[in-house]
């Protein structure tokens, strides 16, 4: 039996259960659902590992008439990381939402819809279906941001909504142009038909701009920090770890699978340039914040910039360097997802414990709530790219690609970026290890529930462990079908 549709049916069914039966203990039921979901994901992973990429025609209508779902190495990797992070966030939310009764009622349906839409995006093989998936992600994510319904989150959520809709329009416009020019929405078929011409360029430009807005890449980043910084902790974790990656994933897929031949080198360098701007701007802004959640949110802006460096490293370079860049980029997606979700979860615990969002309020907590601070630190190690961690491996692969292809300017950007990350992470540590505050007995805190501390630590540990097990996802990325498209990309 084919597992692909179950990855959509399970979250949708659980969404309905949590919507219709709010009196049941929907939190624990959700955890059960996550176990089922993870099992299905693991089985699909295994099957793809053994038999290679799978395609699934929904409704038995072949593309281009119908919609095809595709599960290749990249897809199952992302499915797995989604299931993993979502499960930990769900576990964390069980404890976290105890103090948020009203929000808990609506958190779970939105959580499941978000999960369904993310899975839908990873699996989609059709441009318009991706648009629908993006819409569902947007609405679920915006809904989760404004759950706590105070004036700040409402404003942030609305701005997020408007920017995301603007991005959707850009994407849809481009898809409409591609459809009018080639008559198909199926990505594989489009990859065979597409040619470099004016229509294609305008369409790809429109799509790219739309997706950059949705991914919050530098000049379009401004909606992200208030939205991610203002939301509930498990929501921030899901948003920063997974949601912004969904639009980047589409961008990468499009350039990698569909538009590889039509991507001019100048565009790729331009993408790299805004990525570099994002790294520095996000880093500096993170350094300036005095609220801890805003610091982490700006860190996301900076880290997303690294993803954009993949394009100049992969386009117009030798196949082996291009391959390294893509592997590094995808590993960065995974490493950042783990580290950032760990960071947001641990920060959520810290804020709950000291009862304030200010960084100054964390003075002297190193002896009071060491576990969460340790999780924050581990995640920070991965973000800085120190060995051994997933972040290190990702940046190492990208560095190798940059050095190999002789693009020294990106080497500088990569190294300076890491330095900047270290600066703002240590800013938090300097405060929390403040000896004076420890001695004076400041930083007296409420006890944090064990489950919350443990979840953050678990994810942070995985971000480090990815440094040892990086071969596994990288190997999956080079499964037959992905490999062939990677080779096309580099030629």
């Amino acid at each position: 039996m084919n597992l692909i549709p179950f990855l959509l049916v399970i979250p949708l069914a659980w969404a309905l259960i949590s919507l219709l039966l709010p009196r049941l203990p929907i939190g624990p039921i959700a955890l059960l659902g996550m176990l089922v979901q993870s099992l299905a994901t693991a089985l699909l992973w295994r099957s793809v590992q053994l038999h290679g990429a799978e395609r699934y025609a929904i409704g038995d209508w072949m593309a281009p008439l119908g919609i095809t779902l595709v599960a290749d190495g990249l897809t199952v990797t992302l499915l797995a990381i989604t299931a993993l992070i979502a499960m930990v966030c769900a576990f964390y939310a069980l404890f976290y939402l105890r103090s948020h009764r009203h929000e808990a009622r609506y958190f779970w349906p939105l959580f499941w819809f978000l999960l369904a839409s993310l899975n839908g995006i990873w699996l989609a093989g059709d441009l318009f279906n991706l648009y629908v998936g993006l819409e569902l992600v947007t609405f679920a994510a915006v809904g989760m941001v404004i759950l706590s319904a105070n004036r700040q989150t409402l404003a942030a959520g609305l701005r997020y909504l408007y920017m995301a809709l603007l991005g959707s329009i850009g994407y849809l416009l481009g898809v409409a142009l591609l459809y009018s020019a080639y008559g198909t929405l199926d990505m594989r078929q489009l990859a065979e038909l597409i040619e470099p011409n004016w229509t294609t360029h305008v369409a790809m430009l429109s799509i790219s701009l739309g997706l950059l807005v949705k991914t919050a890449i530098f000049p379009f980043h401004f909606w992200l920090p208030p939205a991610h910084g203002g939301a509930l902790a498990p929501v921030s974790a899901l948003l920063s770890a997974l949601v912004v990656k969904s639009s980047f994933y589409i961008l990468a897929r499009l350039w990698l699978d569909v538009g590889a031949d039509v991507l001019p080198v100048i565009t790729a360098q331009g993408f790299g340039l805004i990525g570099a701007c994002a790294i520095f701007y996000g880093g500096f802004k993170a350094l300036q914040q005095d609220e801890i959640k805003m610091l982490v949110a700006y860190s996301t802006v900076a880290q997303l910039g690294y993803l954009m460096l993949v394009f100049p490293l992969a386009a117009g370079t030798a196949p082996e360097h291009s391959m390294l860049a893509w592997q590094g980029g995808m590993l960065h997606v995974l490493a950042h997802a783990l580290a950032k979700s760990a960071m947001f979860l641990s920060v959520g615990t810290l804020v709950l414990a000291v009862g304030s969002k200010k960084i100054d309020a964390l003075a002297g907590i190193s002896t009071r709530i060491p576990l969460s601070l340790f999780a924050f630190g581990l995640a920070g190690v991965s973000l800085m790219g120190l060995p051994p961690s997933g972040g290190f491996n990702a940046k190492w692969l990208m560095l190798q690609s940059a050095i190999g292809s002789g693009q020294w300017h990106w080497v500088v950007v990569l190294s300076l970026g890491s330095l900047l990350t270290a600066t703002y992470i240590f800013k938090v540590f300097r405060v929390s290890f403040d000896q004076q505050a420890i001695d004076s007995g400041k930083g007296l805190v409420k006890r944090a529930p064990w489950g919350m501390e443990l979840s953050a630590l678990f994810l942070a540990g995985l971000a480090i462990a990815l440094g040892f097990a990086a071969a596994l996802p990288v190997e999956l990325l080079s499964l037959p079908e992905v490999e062939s498209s990677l080779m096309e990309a580099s030629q």
Partner: protein
Amino acid sequence: MNLAFDVLLGIALLLCAAGVFYSRDLFRAVVMFIAFGLLLALVWVRLDAPDLALAEAAIGAGLTGVLMIDAVAHLSAKNAHHQGAQFDQTGARPQLWSRILPVFSAVIIFILLLGAIWWRPDAPVSLPDLVAESLPESGVEHPITAVLLNFRSYDTLLEIAVLLVAVVVAMALKPDTSEPEAGNSKDPILHGLSARLVPPMLVVGVYILWAGSYMPGGAFQGGAILAAALVFLKLAGFGIERLADSLLRIGLALGFIVFLTVATSVMIGGRPFLTYPESVAGELIFFIEAMLTFSIGLILFSLFSQAPPPVAPTSSLQGEQDER
């Protein structure tokens, strides 16, 4: 003659858009937007897309206008409460760049698009031909319904999920304590109007749903009309928003539940997800559409009714003179 009409229509549409855009008075922008929706429906007609025209007439010219008027009433009621504390921005004179920048980017986008359409290659694949070829197997006669409910039903399933999410968010935003619409149902004329207008609305809604299997129409358009009828009833003072919460939830989700159940249960027979057995495809599609119509109607209505009624008389808006 055709060209002359289309050019005039285009100019009218642009005028309305500019009117919305450059209007500092919020209410003027709303009325301009209603007019824009009407003209947009005409544009869809001229583009040979009567299905979209139908949806636009129902949603754009009908429901959206109501929602926006409602929103303006809320805003001005709030405004009257705390004197201009938070809505100062709406009345502020916009900066020069914020007027020029949109025009500038619109011109650039226009030029790029013009080029993209002018030099567009001939499509090597023709989906309309494929649709026409497979139409006999789809169970319906209207190609658009076949695409929405059969060939690309997965998209439609997710779209319904989007609507459902929207209404969940609206429910989450609703304060736990909100009063029902004040009982000013005394107006006998409005009462009489709803008695005469709502039944035909329901009949037309069902007709549009049923027509969807062989001509323009279907679940979305029918649902929009149903929603309009419900909005009407609420405005006329019938307390229909006091539905039991659990009942409302089931009603909202019914279409999605049926759709998902059908989509999944066919897999028991070994068919792929969302594959209708050919012998009953038409019946299944109609059944799903009927349930969707009901749910879409309730969802669109809920988006309107979740908002609490405005708290204060909003006569301030009436006196607002236009500053030229």
